[in-house]
């Protein structure tokens, strides 16, 4: 059976065996998922990499659907990503039955805590396999695990493996394919008696009111409802009586001072702890400092920690700015070369213009930044894969708690340096809904990779070269300042939001620090490839489309040149004719004469051409848009061309580059340097003043740091907050900030005479 026939044949899809992977965060679920399905979902060494349910297919005679879930410490969900895991396993999602098999991925070096979740999963009454992952790490830590005994006690198969080394996967595949797996045995642990006596009656009511809940799942549903309000709310619609009974049971327990909230933890651990003690033998002392601890002694040190973190960030920006240059130059010259080849091999005309001025220069000017984006992802991948990302959250927690957030917001904010969309999604790991909302609201202030092209272009064109302390280039430092400004503003914004909008309790921070691991370069490499593919496709889709539209807007309506410009041409023509005639009169052949004079008058004609093209652009649609906006943007130092560029960049930031490229190449006759930054430098107002001074460039840069110019960010914020209110607030405050800051910078700079 081929893959495509499975996709098309609905009956077979319905019968497809579904296997869910669940486990604590960072135990290697996605690593296992990737090996089973051959996919390349994101893997990283910090808790909370996966925040969405992902499905894939394990090929074989009978294909099987594999579901990767966000990591979860227990089935009592606190954050959104944990909720997803429970919903999938319990069948609470509409149109999605419970999986046919659950594979619990367990970190072998941390059995007790990991098995807590396993005992919860066992109570769902589904077939279960326990995959003991990270056996390599457990052995290194001196742990010996009696697998046979563990399997006997749990009553389900237990398979040892090391997913990242591809060990033990074959056996897992075999077990997953088995069709004779039975459901997990019933629990052999008990709750404290005062709580236990309440259970049967509640199970009874639930069974009557909601018969669709499978018999074996009732117990855990009751237990969840007893301790969690969100779980209880779910039954509002389905089982109102059950809900009332649970509330009464809670009151009874409360009045008898029964700590029922802790009953589950006490009960499960009461059974687990002795079991683990029996199964695991330690050859080393637990408290002995590991290699990771020694590294941490330095990297999370009170003084060196933050210092090192700052250095790392500085290094990244410096590298992104300078190491990428050779490759960027190469791409730049290929783009120019391509344009020239197209011009040479196609007849001159509208279509060729569109191709060269619109498409090649629009897309090319953005693709140039690919090397920088690759480098940025390389460094972020390195941080994620080694385990340093989790430390950065820890180091930054102190500072973050001052601005009203917790260390948990660090990873979402750092991911936003790549792109605000994964950053906003990563906020799902935050258990506190206020923290989550604030993080979502400020994440787009972190400079994403789409701003990088804009920063690079303007910094390279208008800020001085040279080095500070002979080490760091001035331009690298300028780049760093852009990132710093965005970050500081994000902190200020969250402080304000916390103080004014979400008054309330301080946030909480407790996080697991995974052991440092050697980065897996193959994995980082593939992530870089995947991300750059996404970037190029984006450039292909949005920017390609926008380039064509922009070119059209710049080229139409076709306008007759003004009388003044017409006069320039006719007087040039008159001079040309006179000079040709006078040469002809002394016996030079006509063709030769006109060629000679043509060459002599080339620069004059070029000026005439430029005047005509400039007039065309100014009176085109885009010119009109720019001119309409100019009065508003003038105080920030922006002329009509920049204004038009900013308008077009509201869909996506990089578009400003295509827009400027289009405006300048339509208005240009192809003689000067084809590099956009050279054209920008050469542009002047009619009175001869340059359009771009360093002050204008800084004002523009700051505008791009702060403004929210990204449709996709708004869309994702809408999805994650379930309303248009927050995205609207986000857009307004960020754009307002951008305008205000650019205004202050430009006007202040002018007043100080820096214009």
């Amino acid at each position, binding site marked *: 059976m081929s893959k495509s026939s499975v996709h098309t044949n609905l009956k077979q899809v319905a019968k497809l065996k579904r296997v869910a992977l669940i486990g604590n965060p960072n135990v290697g679920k996605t690593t296992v998922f990737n090996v089973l399905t051959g996919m390349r979902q994101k893997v990283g060494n910090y808790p909370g990499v996966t925040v969405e349910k992902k499905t894939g297919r394990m090929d074989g005679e009978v294909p099987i659907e594999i579901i990767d879930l966000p990591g979860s*410490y227990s089935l009592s969900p606190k954050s959104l990503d944990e909720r997803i895991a429970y919903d999938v396993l319990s069948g609470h999602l509409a149109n999605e039955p419970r999986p046919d098999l659950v594979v619990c991925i367990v970190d072998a070096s941390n059995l007790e805590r990991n098995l807590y979740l396993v005992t919860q999963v066992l109570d769902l009454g589904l077939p279960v396999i326990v995959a003991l992952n990270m056996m390599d790490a457990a052995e290194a830590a001196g*742990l010996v695990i009696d697998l046979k005994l563990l399997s006997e006690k749990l009553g389900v198969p237990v398979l040892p493996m090391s997913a990242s080394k591809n060990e033990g996967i074959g056996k897992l595949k075999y077990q997953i394919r088995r069709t004779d797996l039975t459901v997990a045995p019933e629990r052999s642990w008990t709750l404290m008696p005062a709580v236990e006596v309440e259970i049967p009656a509640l199970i009874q009511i639930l069974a009557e009111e909601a018969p669709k809940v499978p018999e074996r799942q009732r117990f855990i549903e009751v237990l969840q409802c007893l301790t969690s309000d969100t779980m209880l709310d779910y039954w509002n619609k389905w089982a109102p009586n059950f809900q009332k009974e649970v509330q009464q049971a809670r009151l009874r327990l409360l009045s008898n001072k029964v700590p029922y909230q802790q009953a589950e933890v006490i009960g499960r651990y009461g059974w687990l702890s002795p079991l683990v003690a029996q199964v695991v033998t330690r050859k080393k002392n637990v408290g002995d400092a590991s290699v990771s601890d020694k590294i941490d002694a330095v990297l999370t040190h009170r003084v060196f920690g933050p210092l090192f973190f700052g250095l790392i960030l500085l290094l990244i920006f410096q590298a992104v700015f300078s190491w990428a240059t050779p490759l960027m130059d190469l791409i730049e010259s290929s783009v120019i070369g391509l344009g020239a080849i197209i011009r040479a091999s196609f007849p001159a005309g509208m279509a060729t213009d569109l191709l060269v001025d619109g498409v090649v220069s629009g897309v090319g000017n953005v693709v140039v930044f690919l090397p920088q984006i690759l480098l940025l992802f390389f460094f972020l991948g390195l941080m994620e894969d080694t385990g340093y990302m989790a430390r950065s959250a820890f180091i930054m927690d102190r500072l973050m708690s001052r601005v009203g957030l917790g260390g948990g917001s660090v990873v979402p904010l750092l991911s936003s340096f790549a792109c605000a969309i994964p950053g906003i999604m990563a906020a799902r790991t935050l258990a506190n809904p206020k923290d989550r909302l604030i993080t979502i609201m400020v994440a787009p202030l972190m400079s994403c990779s789409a701003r990088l092209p804009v920063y690079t272009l303007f910094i390279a064109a208008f800020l001085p070269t040279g080095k500070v302390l002979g080490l760091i280039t001035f331009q690298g430092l300028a780049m760093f300042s852009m990132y710093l400004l965005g970050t500081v503003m994000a902190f200020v914004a969250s402080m304000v939001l916390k103080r004014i909008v979400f008054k309330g309790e*301080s946030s909480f921070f407790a996080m697991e620090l995974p052991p440092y691991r050697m980065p897996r370069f193959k994995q980082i490499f593939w992530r870089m490839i995947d991300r750059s593919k996404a970037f190029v496709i984006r450039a292909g889709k949005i920017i390609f489309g926008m380039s064509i539209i922009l070119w059209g807007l710049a080229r139409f309506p076709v306008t007759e040149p003004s009388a003044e410009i017409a006069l320039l041409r006719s007087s040039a023509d008159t001079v040309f004719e006179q000079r040709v005639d006078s040469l002809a009169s002394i016996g030079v052949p006509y063709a030769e004469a006109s060629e000679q004079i043509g060459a002599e008058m080339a620069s004059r004609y070029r000026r005439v051409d430029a005047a005509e093209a400039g007039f065309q652009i100014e009176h085109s649609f885009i010119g009109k848009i720019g001119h309409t906006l100019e009065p508003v943007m003038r105080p920030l130092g922006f002329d009509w061309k920049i204004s038009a560029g900013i308008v077009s960049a509201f869909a996506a930031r990089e578009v400003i580059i295509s827009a400027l490229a289009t405006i300048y190449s339509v208005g240009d006759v192809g003689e000067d340097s084809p590099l956009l930054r050279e054209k920008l430098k050469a542009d002047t107002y009619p009175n001869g003043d340059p359009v771009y001074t360093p002050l204008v460039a800084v004002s523009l840069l700051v505008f791009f740091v702060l403004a929210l110019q990204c449709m996709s960010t708004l869309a994702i914020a809408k999805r994650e907050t379930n309303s248009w209110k927050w995205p609207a607030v986000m857009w307004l405050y960020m754009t307002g900030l951008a305008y205000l800051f650019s205004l202050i910078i430009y006007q202040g700079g002018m007043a100080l005479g820096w214009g």
Partner: protein
Amino acid sequence: MSPIHVPQPLTSFSTGVLVQLAFFALGDPEAQRLRELGVIEGNQIHILKNGDSFVCCVESSRIALRREVAMNVFGTPVVL
């Protein structure tokens, strides 16, 4: 005569000490989160770092806590 230990906040122990956890003076959701991370009443933990931030060792995992959280977790030292 062995001293009778009154539970103390985790931040009062020095690094390297083995502590038996007694109780949490935290809200329910916070206490629950700690328990899920393996920081459970009755369990023993090693103090790895105790300064402006706090790290402890439970089994072979390292748990980082904000100092204000560690201040509200109480335990007694285990004498080996």
